[in-house]
């Protein structure tokens, strides 16, 4: 069997596994967020928080909860790193400097997990486990909470009530993320991922001498890193490191984990709005884009254009033998079309076009299938835009799921889709205009520009992967990428929740013969087209200067 066929078979197996769990997991999550009952453990947690989980919140209250929780999260994680040197469980590692601590704290709270530090030499057990890994759980749960609030906005009418943030947060962690992570972590350990709290291992080497590596709670962090579409590696090499991703099977398993919730949430959406067909239409849109991107990536990586890759004979630079080109291509597309940003191979050494595909995946807004929660709400905003475009064509007030898309709704949706590109392009332009930020580039020419464009695309879209040649541990990048992550996470959430609030207040309009049927393939086609055209028009000039210039030259 050739590597291309093996790559395709892995893709088929992955799709089959995702299809198998789609309905049960999607239905289960719908039940979790609709249930009236509280588990006993949850009641303890609510008591600890001091919140009544049955109080309904309006959108501003829901938003305030998110902002307060996230602000405290940033501050806590910042202090934990600043104080690492004097805390126990640090392995003797010193405290992290202010700019890097800020960057890392923001990065993990915003579900980005951009890392300007080397995990194995910077973060001790306590910061990794009680700081970073905790945000892996809660930032994912916050994303799902916002998505569920938006879905309730569609499902409910003539009310301002969107649910209770604390209840959605706790349920997301306790009933969804935690059980899945326990199972996944044990599978990973069984395959060779490490899980211990011993200090630095020093072991002998075959030719004499010794090597030192870190122990750590790696498997438990790896599991939620993928399930919560976080992506922050325990080690610098992330999921390319054999202790995080030891075998070909774990590689496929990790791809499955990072895709499973974002895809299944379309089912949750369908169930909660009372029409699973609407969920299928959204799923079909996500799946079409994802599959198309995987096909393109496999094609360009197997073709391995570029002088160095041609000389080597295959695009194996930055890739592990056990995964090979096929499996690495699936991982790269899946991690950049979700908000994960974990890598099993290094995107900077992909072909010019392959690197462009990872960037374009993030630029689409990470909605195919996108991050845990953020993928669904991003895609629903795009659906509103698509419905609006269709409405313009026939001169009819657009509706989606029985709600009128009026001036207020379309303004909020437009703000949502404008904010991230604005952040990416302005910060990239500023970095290119100033002289010092350019010193951080490793490569020169088009690829050097791509490194900077990639960094801000990754930060503003809360992805976290990198063209990692860029030295991002400077005050400029630590600060500016930190700001891009903060604004790229929370401004869109403001618009989404405001949108949810205004949708929930409407009374539903009845379906008539003139209603656009948003559960039909025609709408899926329209939506895919709208996504590609809007993103293409926004980013084409920037892409032309970077990956397209590099890809077409080789």
């Amino acid at each position, binding site marked *: *069997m050739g590597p291309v066929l093996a790559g395709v078979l892995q893709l088929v197996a992955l799709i089959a596994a995702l299809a198998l769990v789609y309905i049960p997991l999607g239905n289960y999550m719908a039940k979790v967020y609709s249930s009236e009952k509280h588990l006993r453990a949850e009641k303890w*947690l609510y008591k*600890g928080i001091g919140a009544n989980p049955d109080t309904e919140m309006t959108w501003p209250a829901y938003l305030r*909860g998110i902002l*307060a*929780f996230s*602000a405290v*999260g940033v501050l806590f994680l910042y202090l934990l790193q600043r104080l690492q040197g004097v805390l126990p469980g640090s392995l003797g*590692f*010193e405290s992290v400097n202010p700019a890097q601590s800020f960057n890392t704290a923001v990065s993990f709270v915003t579900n980005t997990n951009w890392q300007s530090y*080397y995990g*194995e*030499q910077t973060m001790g057990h306590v910061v990794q*486990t*009680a700081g970073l*890994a*905790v945000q892996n*759980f*809660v930032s994912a749960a916050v994303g799902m909470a916002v998505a569920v609030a938006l879905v309730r906005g569609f499902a409910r009418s003539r009310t301002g009530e969107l649910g209770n943030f604390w209840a959605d947060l706790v349920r997301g962690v306790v009933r969804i993320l*935690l059980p899945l992570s*326990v199972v996944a972590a044990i599978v990973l*350990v*069984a395959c*060779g991922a*490490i*899980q*211990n709290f011993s200090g*630095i291992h020093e072991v*002998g*080497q*075959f*030719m004499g*001498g010794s090597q*030192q*590596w870190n*122990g750590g709670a790696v498997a438990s962090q790896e599991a*939620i890193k993928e399930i919560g579409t976080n992506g922050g590696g325990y080690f610098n090499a992330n999921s390319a490191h*054999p202790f995080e991703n030891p075998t*070909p*099977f774990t590689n*496929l398993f990790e791809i499955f984990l990072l895709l499973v919730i974002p895809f299944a949430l379309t089912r949750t959406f369908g169930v909660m709005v009372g029409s699973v067909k609407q969920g299928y239409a959204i799923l079909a849109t996500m799946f079409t884009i994802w599959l198309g991107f995987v096909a393109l990536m496999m094609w360009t990586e197997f073709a391995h254009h*570029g*002088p*160095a890759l041609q*000389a*080597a*004979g295959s695009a*194996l*630079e*930055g*890739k*592990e033998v*056990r995964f090979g080109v096929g*499996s690495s291509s699936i991982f790269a597309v899946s991690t950049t079309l979700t908000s994960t940003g974990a890598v099993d191979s290094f995107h*900077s050494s992909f072909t*010019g076009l392959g690197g462009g595909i990872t960037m374009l995946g993030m630029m689409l807004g990470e909605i195919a299938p996108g991050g845990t929660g953020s993928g669904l709400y991003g895609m629903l905003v795009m659906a509103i835009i698509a419905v609006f475009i269709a409405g313009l064509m026939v001169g009819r007030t657009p509706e989606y799921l029985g709600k009128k898309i009026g001036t207020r709704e379309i303004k909020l949706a437009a703000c949502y889709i404008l904010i991230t590109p604005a952040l990416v392009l302005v910060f990239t332009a500023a970095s290119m205009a100033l002289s010092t930020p350019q010193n951080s580039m490793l490569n020169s020419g088009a690829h050097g520009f791509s490194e900077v464009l990639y960094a801000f695309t990754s930060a503003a879209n809360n992805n976290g992967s990198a*063209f*990692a*040649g860029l030295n991002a541990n400077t005050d400029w990048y630590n600060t500016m990428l930190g700001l891009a992550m903060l604004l790229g996470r929370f401004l869109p959430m403001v618009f989404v929740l405001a949108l949810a609030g205004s949708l929930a207040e409407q009374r539903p309009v009845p379906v008539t013969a003139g209603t656009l049927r948003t559960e039909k393939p025609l709408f899926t086609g329209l939506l895919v087209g709208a996504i590609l055209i809007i993103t293409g028009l926004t980013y084409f000039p920037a892409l032309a200067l970077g990956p397209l210039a590099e890809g077409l*030259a080789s």
Partner: protein
Amino acid sequence: MNNSVTNTARLLGAGLRALLVLTVLTGVIYPLAVTGVAQALFNNKANGSEVSYEGKVVGSSLIGQQGYSLDYFQPRPANGLGENSVNTQYKLLLSGATNLSADSKDLLKQVDEAKAKVVKDNSVAGYTVKPSEVPADAVTSSGSGLDPDISPAYADLQVHRIAEKNGLTVAQVQKLVDDHTSGRTLGFIGEPRVNVLELNIALKALVAKG
């Protein structure tokens, strides 16, 4: 005004309490519980899959090593592997890739030089390696810099050299390689591979046996 300050403080208080209780759950109980299960059921794996030769630990089967002499099978290059620059009381392996681009002149130079060396090292009396026969994994650095494996093609390429250097027959060494080649998992997952450390341990044992 005063009212909104109080409200904000109360909200931040709730946020802090939520963070603390969830930290206990997901940052303390969860990792400890997983560690307990892992240590009980998969002790060796949870601690890094260390391998021994003649009673001495010689590394981890998952972590590739550099510095093998030419008597042994060579691993992939690891030009992205680093040394730690902070907390230098330790000498930690700093995993990583080169991150050089496909059109990088530096990368092209690395590939060309590695290829020339592979050709030179492995061309022995009666067996000449052509540059076109050198597989890609022999001349490229992995993503982690710690890739424990090489492709079966690269192992095969080294068989004649290993046989000559160790006074073994080509057939003996080829059998050794074949025995240590893992196919794709279930026939289609990942790529075929040979674990360099395990292969070299077996080689050493074979040579010691005579």
